[in-house]
Every structure is written in C-alpha cells, then in structure tokens.
C-alpha cells in the first residue's frame, strides 16, 4: 500500500526501512514526567530508559497509576517529557512543536483505545478515512479505507453504519482500521480488549498479532489482562513510574 502520500513510507521507503532496521523505532533516555499539582508534584515517569526495535510486540503492564498511560502518551507524541529525551526512529521528539508532533501522530503512529473513540458523527468508513483525508484526496482515501476495513474482516454492509449502530467488537475493528489506514510504523494500544467480551477480545488480539507478524507493525499495548501478554514478544512491568 505504498503511495506517494506525504509523510507516509514512500517509494524510497525500503532503503529508509533498511537504514532504520538498526535504529530503534523508539528510544527513551532517562525520561521523567512530573505533573505539578497544588497538593504536590506527581511523578508519573521516573527516569525511564527503554528501547523498542522495529517490529516488536510489547505489552506494558502494571497497577493503576504506575505510569503506563503516561508512557504510552509520550510514545504517541501526545505529551512531552519534563526531562530526558525521546527518539522516534532516531529523530528527537522531546522538544518538537505541537504542529510537528501532530504531523508525526498523523503519519507514523496509530492509536487504538479501550473505548474505541470513534467520531459519532461519521460512518465506519468515514472514521477510517479521516486521518487520510487530512493529507490526501478524498477519492483515494475512500478506496484505502475500504481496503483496510476489509482487512479487519468487517462486513461491507456495516461500512456506512455510524459507531452507535455497531457492536463493541465491530467498533474496535473500525478503530484499528483507522489506526492502520495511514500505514504507520507504530501501533499504540491502550487496553484494546478492555471493553470487549473474551471471545471478541481474542479476535481483536489475533488481528493485532497478525498486523505485527504480517505487516511488520511495531505494537505497544497497555493491558491489565495477563493473558494478553501471550501475544507479546516481551512484557514491560511498571511500578511507580519506573520499569520494574
């Protein structure tokens, strides 16, 4: 699905991918995040250093408030560290402007949320094509959105349905399709099965596993469910803002 869309992996991508094969897709160097609150500072991340290689599937576990979400937000360019450095494919992102971070989110990162977070005003296919429309024409975006939705095994008849008319599992398939539509390097999942029954959850995990194995996507998944770690290459445990 390589196209000439700006910001996406393009014609010269293979050499870039080859070059980045030795470069970690993500590198945290002594990253801390402190939220100043009236009651006292909250240290959400405490001197975290870690490296993620391209194509890895990593599960992040830990009790509530251990800093899992903050870690994921930093990886997803939604937040910047108080101190330390973060590199995305060798490029430092810790001091980037809001617009540059937004562009990175749009072109290189896909988010999957526990509560699916689809836009209620848009149909399934419109939700999926949305990130693409931000950069490309409408016609090609629609084609690509349909293609990715089919890859997620979503029934064609449901493409025009609004999120409210879809089941949880269907919504999460649409959400994953939206995350993948821009062909990102990195898929960040925040408890993607947390709102699904176990059977549907398993199907979603199979899907994420397949994206990792077959499409080479790097997947980082926050989860409370130890069973889900089976799909991961490695599991990171977090306690009190540190890697255990």
């Amino acid at each position, binding site marked *: 699905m390589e196209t000439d869309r700006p910001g996406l992996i393009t014609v010269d991508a293979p050499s870039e991918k080859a070059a980045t094969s030795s470069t970690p897709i993500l590198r945290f160097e002594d990253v801390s995040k402190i939220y100043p609150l009236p009651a006292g500072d909250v240290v959400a991340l405490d001197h975290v250093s870690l490296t993620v290689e391209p194509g890895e599937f990593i599960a992040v576990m830990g009790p509530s408030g251990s800093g899992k979400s903050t870690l994921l937000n930093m990886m997803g360019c939604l937040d910047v560290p108080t101190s330390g450095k973060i590199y995305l494919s060798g490029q430092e992102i810790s001091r980037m402007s809001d617009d540059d971070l937004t562009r990175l989110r749009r072109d290189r990162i896909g988010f999957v949320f526990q509560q699916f977070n689809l836009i209620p005003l848009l149909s399934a296919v419109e939700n999926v094509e949305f990130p693409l429309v931000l950069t490309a024409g409408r016609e090609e975006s629609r084609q690509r959105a349909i293609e990715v939705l089919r890859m997620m095994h979503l029934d064609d008849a449901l493409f025009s349905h609004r999120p409210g008319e879809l089941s949880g599992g269907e919504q999460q398939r649409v959400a994953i399709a*939206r995350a993948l539509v821009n062909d990102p390097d990195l898929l960040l999942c925040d408890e993607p099965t947390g709102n699904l029954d176990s059977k549907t959850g398993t199907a979603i995990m199979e899907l994420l596993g397949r994206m990792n194995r077959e499409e080479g996507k790097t997947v980082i998944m926050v989860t409370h469910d130890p069973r889900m770690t089976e799909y991961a290459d490695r599991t990171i445990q977090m306690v009190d803002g540190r890697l255990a």
Partner: protein
Amino acid sequence: MTFFDLARRNVSRHWLRSILAVTGIAIGVVAIATLGIMGNSINLMFNDMVSDVGDTITVSPATRSGTTELTKRQVDDITRAVGANRAIPFATTFDSVTVGETKSGAMIYAIPAKDIPFLLDMEAGAYPKDTGSGCVIGKTLAENSKDTGLKLGARATIGNETLRVVGVLEERGMGFDINPDSAVIVPYSWYSNHYDKDTYDQVIVKVRDVNDLDAVKEAIEQKMNRRENVVTVMDTRGILKEVFAAVDSITVFLMGIGAVSLIVAGVSILNVMLMSVTERIKEIGVLRSIGTRRSEVMRMFIYEALILGLVGAAIGGVLSFGTGYMMTAVFSGNPDYFFNPTSLLYIVFGMAFGIGMSAVSGIYPAWKAAHLNPIQALRHE
C-alpha cells in the same frame, strides 16, 4: 470528510439548539436592516423635499443689524448681485380680513405682482396685477373659509380697503421661504400704498442652476456684507443639512437598537458554541490524537458558527424585504423608497453584520477547543 462537513453534521445533530441560534441571528438581521431602512426612507423623503426647494436662497436682515427690514436700495443691490437669477422681495404683515359680516385675521404676503408667478402656482383664477385691486388666497385658507364666503370672486376687506379674490393658490406645503397656504397674497404696490411702506422683510432668490447656489450666495455676501454684517444669507440646503444631520442621528440610533439585538444573538451563538465544545471534548481529544492540527479543530468550530450565522443571515435577509417594505410604507408613506439602492444596502449590511457577529462569537469557543490538552480531552467522560 472535510471539516466543513463535520461542522454541518454537528449543526444538524443538535437541530433544535441550532434553530434557536439561527432564529436569534435572523431577528437581529431583520431588526438592524428594517430600522436602517426606516431611517433611510425618512432621509430620502427629506431629500425629495430638498430637491423641490433646493434652488432657493433667502436674504433677511442680519439679527445684529438692528432692523428687521430691508430698504428698497438694499433690495436693488441684492437684485444686482444675483445677476440673471430672480430676486423676489416681499413684506409680511398681519391684518383683519372681512368678508360680508365675518371678520377674521390672516397673514398677508406682499409680493411684486410680476414676481408672483415665479414663486407661486395658481389652482384657479388669475394672478393679481399691480394696477388692479386683486388678491389671491392660499388653498388652506380657501378651504377653511367656505362658511365665511372667502372664495374665488369674493370681495374681502383688508384693513379698510376692499380687494377682490382673483385666484386661489395650489397647495404648497411647508416651505423654508414663505408659507402661503393660510395666507392672503397681495401685490406689493397695493401694500405699499395701503400701509404707506417701502421696505421689505426678506428677499427670495430663485437660482436657475442649483450648482450656482454657492456662487450666488457668495455674490450677495460680497455685495451686502463687505463692511458689516447687514444681511443673513441662507439656502434651503443649509437648513436641510441640519435636518439631515438629525435624521442621520435617528438612523444611527435605530440601527444601534438593531445592533444590540444582533449582539444578543451573537451571545447566544457563543453559548451554543461553548456547549458544543464542552460536549465534544473527548471527540476533540480523539481528533487531535489521530493527527488533526489545532488550526483544523479551530476551523471546524468556526465553520459551525458560520453555518449558523449564514443561515440566520439568509433567513433574516429574506424577512427584511417584507418588514423593510412595510416599515417604509408606514413611516414615509411612499413604499418606493424601499427599492432605492441605499435602502436595500441596509439588508446587505444587516446580513454582513449577522455573519460577522456569528464568526466573532465562534472565535473564542473554537480557540478553546483547539487549545485543549489532547490527553486530558481524551480522558474526559
């Protein structure tokens, strides 16, 4: 999927709220356009009056000159100063008018007989002559005197001399020079003999070309007021300028009232937009997380406010045609003024103001939405 599309869908999702906001803007546009048109119609009405008498200059004794009369010599000077334009001197007095047994009082204008046709039009009868002992009466006086017998052909005693009514004037309406509708007009020669006077109260100068008005005024000033202020020279346009200024103030005041109603409508849009932002905080977080820029989020909300403004302004604009026409007909008595481009421009102005007001009202909510912290927005329930 464009941001305009998203904005449009959100407007129709909350249709009741949107209709109310649109109604507010429509009312505001109607108010500002209608009141503007009303003021403009009054203005146009006065304007028409000016063009009727816009060629007139009046010359009267200056207040500080110590006299209320102009001498024969001064009148001759004025006549010379105005060159080819006609200078019509006249005197006024108030005297008793007796017809048969009935005695009443009336305003008497004494005008040289040769000049009367240049100043007044006859409805019936003929103009009086310097040699004869005839007079003419105003239309209103004639209508009010049906019982007393003061009519065309009647013999009326003014003071102690009897004159025949040889003509009735056309109605002239309120003027800036003389008001003959309720008066008796006599030839100046008769007045001069009868009252033993040879002075005048005022000179009316009828300017042939309105563009010469200022030059003629200047010529009179030069001739008469070179050494000291002997006469006051006024043109009807000057007098009306003050009337126009007053009408303009009324128009501005009326439009101010309209503007207030639009500002209220703007506040309601602000309210609707803030509600829309608050309800969609999570959605904004999602949009931002999947790569929507701040400027794009801002655009989406501005579009939403603009849609409300555009629809409201369009409806208001259409309604303004009806209300504007009606108000023009009621207040100026001539609905044609409504179709004057200057009147119709107020509809465009009202609509533009409505759209502008909506856009301005949308800025703060849009800015607020665009600057939400995406992480906090995503966590919002």
